[in-house]
């Protein structure tokens, strides 16, 4: 009697393939078998290819295809590789993400258009990019995890990249803000009376290590990937 499945498949097909690259090894793990089988085979493969004591540590990339790893299973996989400290796991790549994460990504990368005057004492907090059609009055505050675009006058406080994104910026039709904040940077208005500026943006200047205000035109070369979604795709 032939028992369908496991044994036969295992014989015919490799569940784990290893490829050597310039940067180290890439492990391709088949995504159609059960995780336990993959781990089993991986265990054997690792045993055979693990560098010796006197050889240098090899960095490893794992490609999972359409397999999703939970925190637990990822831990088991990591354990397997890092046993005896001869492999260093660079990256575990998967082609799939959870719906929940996808929705969160979308949230974080969406531009939310809001039509409102943010008055003194009001705080407008947004996940993603904020497009405010209206003014931010003195004493009012807007904050977004992404960029802040204001079609109106900014007199109050604007905070871009609240989750720590230093590439985020603040753009406004007219700005005379009391404070600009980007990620963990804060800059404030000078103590002397000054005129506001039209069509400018506030962003972190790496060289000066502070927030600078510049013409909107500089964004096209300083912040090329303007959309939060593209940023996420690139930097995870």
């Amino acid at each position, binding site marked *: 009697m032939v028992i369908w499945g496991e044994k036969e498949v295992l014989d015919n097909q490799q569940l784990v393939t290893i490829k050597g690259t310039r940067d180290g090894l890439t492990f391709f793990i088949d995504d159609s078998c059960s995780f336990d089988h993959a781990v089993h085979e991986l265990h054997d493969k690792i045993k055979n290819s693990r560098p010796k004591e006197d050889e240098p540590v090899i960095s490893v990339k794992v490609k999972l295809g359409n397999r999703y790893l939970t925190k637990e299973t990822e831990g088991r996989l990591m354990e397997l590789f890092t046993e005896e400290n001869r492999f260093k796991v660079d990256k575990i790549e998967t082609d799939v993400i959870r719906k929940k994460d996808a929705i969160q990504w979308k949230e974080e990368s969406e531009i939310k258009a809001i039509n409102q005057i943010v*008055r*003194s*004492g*009001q705080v407008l907090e947004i996940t993603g990019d904020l497009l405010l059609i209206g*003014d931010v*009055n*003195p*004493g*009012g505050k807007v904050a977004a995890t992404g960029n802040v675009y204001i079609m109106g006058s900014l*007199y109050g406080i604007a905070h871009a990249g609240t989750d720590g994104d230093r590439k985020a910026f603040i753009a406004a039709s007219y700005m005379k803000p009391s404070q600009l904040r980007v990620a963990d940077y804060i800059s404030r208005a000078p103590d002397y009376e000054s005129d506001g500026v039209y069509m400018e943006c506030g962003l972190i200047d790496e060289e000066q290590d502070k927030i600078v205000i510049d013409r909107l035109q500089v964004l096209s070369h300083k912040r090329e990937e303007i959309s939060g979604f593209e940023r996420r795709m690139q930097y995870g």
Partner: protein
Amino acid sequence: MGEAIVITSGKGGVGKTTTSANIGTALALMEKKVCLIDTDIGLRNLDVIMGLENRIIFDIVDVIQERCRLNQALIKDKRFESLSLLPAAQTSDKTAVTEEGMKKIIHALKPEFDYIIIDCPAGIEQGFQNAVAGADKAIVVTTPEKSSVRDADRIIGLLENKEVESPRLIINRIRNHMMKNGEMMDIDEIIQILSIDLIGIVADDEDVIKASNNGEPVAMEPKSKASIAYRNIARRILGESVPLQSLEDNKGMMQRVKRLFGMRS
């Protein structure tokens, strides 16, 4: 059915009570039935400005705590049959009044009066919440000072979450020469920041202080600038369209002639 209008500002001392008294008086002058409500419990002033302090027997807290009927607490004005005042209590504090209590009172007053003017206390705490609770419309009073405009902005923001129609603005205590010199915020600048409709501007007028001290609202005086301003506001509340008052000092003909000849005026 009457209309309840709350007069508020956030900041203290910008002239809420004076404005309430004068708008009430001006509306009464136009033969409307008006009830003024003072909600500044513990710091009542409206009765003093109206010159009705000696007539108080019961107050708003007595009404809410059912120690008297609403009609017993209403004070008839000494000048107008059609003007009444519901005074605040001087001995209790703001917790003695509840939002439900206010709503009930205003609901009971509405069939009797054309306009119910509610004088709001300064601040944004319970007293403000009470005063706003039963109001249909709001008038925000500000002066041309940054701090006062900032507070007005805050109040407008808070009013947006209430069941109140979008508020209208009175700019009080304008000193024309300072505005011209740029030492005071000018009207356009204030409106640009607050972005609500303007219902009136009132000049800083000594007559207002004189009148308040005499217990006679300035709106009773026919000629004073502030009086005209308040009466214009009342007309705008009634729906008339009245152009904004010119703030220029109206110098007499003789003085204009003198200036023409280069004499000091």
